[in-house]
C-alpha cells in the first residue's frame, strides 16, 4: 500500500513535468533557483517551487526556515538575489508589489487605523477607480463572505483579533487576486478561534477558487488545510507533497520529526524489504537502496503495538505514561533508546512490555544532513515549535 501511494506520487510529478501544456496552463507561480541573502547570510538556498492554479499550498517550517521570505518574494516585498520568479508565466522579478496580481493577508493584519471597516475593504477598488455603486456592492458582498455584515462603519481598532483578520481577508480578496498570500494569519488567535478560521479559510478558498499560499509553523494547521504542503528548513525545501504523503512518507529525518511525532532510529538496509535496527532484522516494504546502506528509520508512535513480553519483536521498560484524553502516551526504554508509543491501554511504569511493528509501519529514509539530529524521546520537548532564529526577525 505504501509503495503504491509513493509510486502514484512520483508518477504524478513525472506527468506534470513532462507535459508542456499542463505546465503552461496550470502553474500559476513558479520559483526557479531563488536564493536570498541577508547580511551575507543565506536565507533561501535555490528554491524551486511550482504552484498550480486553485491550489491551497502551505509553506511549513520552523522560524528562520525561509518560509516568510519566500512569501515576501512572491508578494514583491523582497527581491531574490538569484533565480527567477514567474506569475502566470510572466517574469515578475522586478515588478513592484502594486503591479502584481497577488494580495497579502499580513501577520499583524495591517488594517489602516485611519479608515473604518468599509473603507479598509474598499481601499483597493477606490485606487482602481471603481464606480461608487460597484464599490458599495462589492464591499457588502465581501463583508458577507467573511461574515462581517453590519460592521461597515465600525473603526478597525474596535474589532477583536478574529474580526480584524476577517477584514484583512476581505480587503485582500476584493481585488480578485490570482493568488492570495497569507502570512501566519491565525498566529495571534486563540485555539478555538483558530480552528473556526481554519475551516472558514478553506471554505473561502473553495468558494472563490483563488490560489492560496499559506505560511505557518503549525504542522497540524498545515495538514488539515492544505492540498499541498511544502516543508522547509534551513532555507531549502525538504519535501513537497500532499498532507498524507508528507505524514506517511517523510523524505528525511527533519520532515519526520517536524510533522507529528516520530521515533527516528539509525538502521542498515540489508536488502530490499529487509532492514536492521535496534539490533534486530525487520521486514519492511521499502526498496531501492544499496545493499547494507545506512539509513534513517521512522516509526510513528501510533504504529507500534504493545504485545505480551514473549511475543514482542523488541522488549523494553515503560519509563513514563501520560494520559492524553483519547490515548496514553508511553515512553518505553528499549536498550537505552526511548520510544514514544500511543496506546489505548494503560501500562504501568517499570513494567516490561513487548513491541510489535508491522512491515508497513516502518518507513526507511535516505541519510541526510538532518540524520542524527533527532534522537529518541529521552529529553522530549516541543523545541522545534518554539525555536526562534534571529535572522528571520531581522528580515521582517
Amino acid at each position: 500500500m505504501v509503495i503504491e501511494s509513493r509510486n502514484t506520487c512520483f508518477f504524478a510529478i513525472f506527468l506534470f513535468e513532462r507535459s508542456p501544456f499542463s505546465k503552461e496552463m496550470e502553474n500559476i507561480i513558479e520559483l526557479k533557483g531563488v536564493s536570498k541573502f541577508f547580511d551575507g547570510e543565506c536565507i533561501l538556498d535555490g528554491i524551486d517551487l511550482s504552484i498550480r492554479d486553485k491550489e491551497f499550498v502551505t509553506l511549513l517550517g520552523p522560524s528562520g526556515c525561509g518560509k516568510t521570505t519566500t512569501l515576501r518574494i512572491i508578494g514583491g516585498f523582497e527581491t531574490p538575489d538569484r533565480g527567477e520568479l514567474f506569475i502566470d508565466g510572466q517574469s515578475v522579478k522586478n515588478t513592484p508589489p502594486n503591479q502584481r496580481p497577488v494580495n497579502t493577508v499580513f501577520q499583524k493584519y495591517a488594517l489602516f487605523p485611519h479608515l473604518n471597516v468599509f473603507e479598509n475593504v474598499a481601499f483597493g477598488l477606490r485606487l482602481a477607480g471603481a464606480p461608487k455603486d460597484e464599490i458599495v456592492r462589492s464591499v457588502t458582498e465581501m463583508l458577507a463572505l467573511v461574515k462581517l455584515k453590519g460592521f461597515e462603519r465600525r473603526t478597525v481598532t474596535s474589532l477583536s483579533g478574529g474580526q480584524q483578520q476577517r477584514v484583512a481577508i476581505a480587503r485582500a480578496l476584493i481585488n480578485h487576486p490570482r493568488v492570495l498570500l497569507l502570512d501566519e494569519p491565525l498566529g495571534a488567535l486563540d485555539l478555538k478561534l483558530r480552528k473556526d478560521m481554519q475551516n472558514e479559510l478553506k471554505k473561502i478558498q473553495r468558494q472563490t477558487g483563488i490560489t492560496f499560499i499559506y505560511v505557518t509553523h503549525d504542522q497540524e494547521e498545515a495538514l488539515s488545510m492544505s492540498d499541498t504542503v511544502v516543508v522547509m528548513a534551513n532555507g531549502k525545501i525538504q519535501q513537497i507533497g500532499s498532507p498524507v504523503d508528507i505524514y506517511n512518507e517523510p523524505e528525511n529525518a527533519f520532515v519526520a520529526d517536524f510533522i507529528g511525532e516520530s521515533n527516528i532510529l539509525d538502521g542498515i538496509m540489508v536488502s530490499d524489504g529487509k532492514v536492521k535496527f535496534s539490533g534486530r532484522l525487520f521486514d519492511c516494504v521499502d526498496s531501492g537502496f544499496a545493499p547494507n546502506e545506512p539509513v534513517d528509520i521512522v516509526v510513528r508512535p501510533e504504529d507500534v503495538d504493545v504485545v505480551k513480553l514473549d511475543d514482542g519483536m523488541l522488549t523494553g521498560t515503560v519509563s513514563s505514561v501520560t494520559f492524553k484524553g483519547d490515548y496514553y502516551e508511553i515512553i518505553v526504554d528499549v536498550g537505552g533508546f526511548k520510544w514514544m508509543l500511543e496506546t489505548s491501554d494503560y501500562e504501568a511504569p517499570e513494567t516490561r512490555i513487548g513491541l510489535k511493528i508491522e512491515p508497513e509501519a516502518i518507513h526507511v529514509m535516505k541519510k541526510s544532513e538532518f540524520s542524527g539530529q533527532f534522537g529518541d524521546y529521552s529529553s522530549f520537548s516541543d523545541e522545534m515549535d518554539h525555536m526562534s532564529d534571529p535572522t528571520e526577525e531581522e528580515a521582517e
Partner: protein
Amino acid sequence: MKGRTAFQKLAAVPHIVWTVMFIVAPMLFVLYFALTDADGRFSFANITSLSQYTNVFILSIAFALIATVICLLIGYPLAYYMAQQKGRTQKLLMVLLMLPMWCNLLIRTYALMTLLDNGGLLNSLLDSLGLGKITIVGTDFGVILGMIYDFLPYMVLPIFTAMTKLDKQYIEAAHDLGCSHLQTMTRVVIPLTLSGVVSGVTMVFVPSISTFYISQKLGAGKIDLVGDTIERLFQNPSTYNVGAVISLVMMILIIISVQVMNRFTDDEKRVMP
C-alpha cells in the same frame, strides 16, 4: 486609600504654588491691565483702540502662516527621509538638526543676522565672486527666513517621531493593495502621521506669531509684528493697558488655532459614502 490621596495632594503643592505665582497671577494682571485705563479705572477704551493694530495682527498671522507652511514643506520630506535611514546615518541627521538648538535662540538669531547682513559672510562671498550683494536683513523675506531657521526642528521632530512609530506593514499593505509610491504617501503615510504634523505646525506657528526678537534683528527694526508691538508698549508704563489687551487677543488667537489643529487629528476617521 484616603492617606494616599492626601499624600498625592501634598505632592502637587510645589507645582500649584509655582503655577499660581508665575502663570495664574500674571494672567490676572494682564486681564486687570487690559480692562483698566492708565489710572486704574475700569475701561473698555483699550479694546476699542485695538483697531489701529489690525495691520500688525494681519502681518504677524501672515508671516507665521508662511513660515509654518514652508517649515512643513521642508520638514515633512526631511522627517520622512530621516525615518527611512538606519542607525548611524539617522543619528547623524538628528545631531545636525538638533545642533543649532543647543544654542540659545537669541544667539542663533543674532548669528544668522551677522551671516546675512550687508557686510556679512554671505554678501562678502557674493561680492568677491562679483555677483553683487543681496539685501536680506530688513526685508520680509529675512524675517520669515529667521523664523524658518529658528523653528524648523520643532516641525521635524514630532513628524519624525510619528514616522518612526508608523508600522512598515501599513506601507507594505498599501503597496500590496495597488498603491504607487505617491499614492502610498497621500493615502496612508500622511493620514497616519497627521498627529505629528499637527504638533509640528502648532509648535512652529505659535512661537512664530509671537516672536519679537527675530523681527527686530532680521527685520532691522523696519518690520513691526505683534510681539514687537507688545514689547514696545510695555516699555512705557502709560501704555501697559493697550499692551495687555494685545497680549490677551494674542493668547485667544493661539488658543483658537491650537483648538482648530486638535480638531484635525480627532476627526481623522473617514465616513462611508
